[in-house]
């Protein structure tokens, strides 16, 4: 029994066969961060009947284990990418997980951030403890489903598999958004559901076109056959459909009307997860498709145009927003437009800048939504909040400065990278994007500093008592993320070099194909 298992798994792993078994096991264990949360999610409800404490601990434990497994895989098997064939069925027929540094980085981020923004951690609503105890297992199960699906999105190397994880993430997020049971959250969920489901329909049509043209949905095989079969308008149409479809979760331009409503009504930690994590993973899927399958310049230009529209609409709407969650939501649309612009730049520079701005936004926007947990009111109500919560207000200023891009902070280097990349591109469209970013930065600075100013104004008499400082757990998380930001800003050179290695690995199409198919496999109908 014990002998059979590793040998069986060995066939599923496309590594050099002279690797020792422990490494193979470590690599194969990369499946567990997807599988274990799924299992735990379904065990949650029966377990809650037996022991509530155990059910409460199950989610964080599973996530911590997942993070440990991913770290192990990174340190032992990496930095070279590796792929795992699920169930031992080799690549073109079976489903593969492809783990390069980018995938592992985002898979790790999923575990860590879901843990940090775990709905049941810290000061859970004590006011209605009984109702909360009723709801907690269901909510935890949904959060675990979201973590599992998001990890799958980062790792999967098969387009249809990605589609299924995307749908799973969507369903889990619908549940999480209306978990507190208010009427307005349900309306927002319903509107979100319609938009998201129609986006999935478009993505499915795109997948059908891809399959019609190529006869495969394995990303590595698509990368092999794409240069001959997906040039021209049909390939571009497929990309446009997939872009708009997956762009729903990535908050890209046409289908992002759900963003402000959902973030204004959902619990703040759920907003943090959706805005920080899930949007990045949807972007990751689009980027993989762009790098591997759709290499024509028109595809990048389409992404660039959607990004510019997102930046402009998002930042101007944020400027007009009157309450804190919706300000953050619109600003998130703008930032994700910036991510799209960065990824549309050619070559390693684009991937480097895109990954950096995605990570930057992941850290900052999650922390800000964490702070918004108690500051969910209108902007006027924030007047003088710095008096009650000086540390939280200080952190807000730090994050705002980095979002705008004030020099010593990481945000500045990222914006510089994007602008240099756009200038090197040099086409009129690139320069238009450059102008849009500069304009958006000015707008962003205005509305963020307006909030910062309001925080430090003397409090209005009757409002001083109403504003509670953010919960201790949320402030702690914000501290941690703020510390990350400062560390990266100080160690900007090594951090950028590490990201550059990662970007080179991500942009290497041949490496992807060779990793998934160790011997060059010719595909025949």
């Amino acid at each position, binding site marked *: 029994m014990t002998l059979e298992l590793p040998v069986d798994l060995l066939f599923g792993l496309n590594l050099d066969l002279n690797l020792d078994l422990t490494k193979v096991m470590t690599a194969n264990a990369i499946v567990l961060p997807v599988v274990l949360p799924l299992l735990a999610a379904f065990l949650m409800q029966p377990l809650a009947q037996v022991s509530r404490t155990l059910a409460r601990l199950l989610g964080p434990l599973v996530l911590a284990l997942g993070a440990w497994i991913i770290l192990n895989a990174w340190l032992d098997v990496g930095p070279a990418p590796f792929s795992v064939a699920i169930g031992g069925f080799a690549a073109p027929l079976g489903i593969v997980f492809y783990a390069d540094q980018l995938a592992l980085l985002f898979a790790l981020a999923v575990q860590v951030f879901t843990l940090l923004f775990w709905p049941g951690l810290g000061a859970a609503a004590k006011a209605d403890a009984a109702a909360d105890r009723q709801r907690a297992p269901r909510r935890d199960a949904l959060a675990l489903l979201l973590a599992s699906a998001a990890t799958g999105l980062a790792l999967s190397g098969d387009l*249809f598999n990605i589609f*299924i994880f995307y*749908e799973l993430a*969507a*369903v889990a997020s*619908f*549940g999480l958004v*209306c978990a507190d049971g*208010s*009427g*307005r959250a*349900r*309306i*927002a*969920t*319903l*509107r979100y*559901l*319609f938009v998201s*489901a*129609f986006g*999935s*329909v*478009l993505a*499915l*049509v795109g*997948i*059908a076109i891809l*399959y*019609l043209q190529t*006869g495969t*949905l394995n990303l590595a095989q698509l990368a092999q056959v794409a240069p001959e079969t997906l040039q021209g308008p049909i390939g571009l149409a497929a990309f446009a459909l997939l872009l708009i479809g997956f762009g729903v979760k990535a908050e890209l331009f046409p289908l992002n009307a759900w963003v402000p*409503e959902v973030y*204004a*009504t959902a619990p703040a930690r759920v907003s943090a997860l959706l805005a920080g994590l899930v949007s990045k993973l949807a972007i990751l899927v689009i980027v993989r498709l762009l790098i591997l399958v759709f290499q024509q310049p028109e595809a990048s230009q389409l992404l660039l145009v959607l990004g510019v529209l997102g930046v402009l609409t998002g930042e101007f709407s944020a400027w007009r927003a*009157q*309450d*804190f*969650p*919706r300000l953050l939501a619109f600003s998130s649309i703008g930032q994700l437009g910036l991510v799209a612009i960065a990824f549309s730049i050619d070559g390693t520079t684009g991937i480097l800048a895109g990954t950096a701005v995605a990570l930057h936004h992941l850290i900052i926007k999650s922390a800000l939504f964490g702070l918004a947990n108690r500051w*969910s*009111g*209108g*902007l*006027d*109500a924030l007047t003088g909040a710095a008096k009650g919560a000086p540390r939280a207000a200080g952190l807000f200023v730090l994050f705002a400065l980095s979002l705008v891009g004030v020099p010593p902070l990481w945000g500045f280097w990222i914006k510089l990278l994007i602008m240099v990349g756009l200038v090197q591109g040099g086409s009129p469209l690139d320069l238009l994007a450059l102008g849009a970013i500069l304009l958006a930065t000015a707008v962003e600075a205005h509305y963020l500093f307006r909030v910062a100013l309001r925080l430090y104004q003397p409090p209005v008499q009757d409002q001083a008592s109403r504003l509670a400082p953010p919960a201790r757990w949320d402030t702690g998380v914000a501290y941690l993320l703020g510390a990350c930001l400062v560390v990266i800003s100080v160690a900007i050179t090594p951090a950028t070099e590490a990201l550059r290695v990662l970007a080179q690995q991500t942009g290497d199409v041949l490496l992807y194909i060779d990793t998934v198919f160790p011997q060059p496999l010719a595909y025949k109908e």
Partner: protein
Amino acid sequence: MIPLTLETVSYAGAVGLVVIGGLGLVICNHLFRMLLALVMAESGANLLLVLTGFRGGAIAPIIGYGPAGAPMVDPLPQVLVLTAIVIGVGVQALAVAVLVRVYRTYGILDMRELRRRMEGEIAVAAGIAAPGSAQVPLGQRPLPPVPDYELVRRSAPVRERGA
């Protein structure tokens, strides 16, 4: 001129269903009709997916069924479409569940009205002025307070609009 074969008609039908569904989602304001439009769009996408494996005159992809060596249709899209149908049904069921809860809370299924109420409730919860319309711009005037919908619903059953 594209030849009018079974295949072209089916492809056109599938894409047409997606387009009709999309238009329905945009045009309809009644939530249940929007749901039906979504169902239609999903059927179109599923039909398109299953069509990608279609070969004219081919047999079902079962070994030992039909003459040996006869061309078979591609089985992979059929498997994919089964998965897609199951996912679609799941999402639709979830939509119906949320829709029923919304109807029990507000007593209406009109999307525009529900959206207005949601905006109002968000504004009340955040303590800011309710968003105005294009005809009634925001200003310094004292705006009428947004009514408490729980109270309104209890005092007078709201008649359904836009059904």
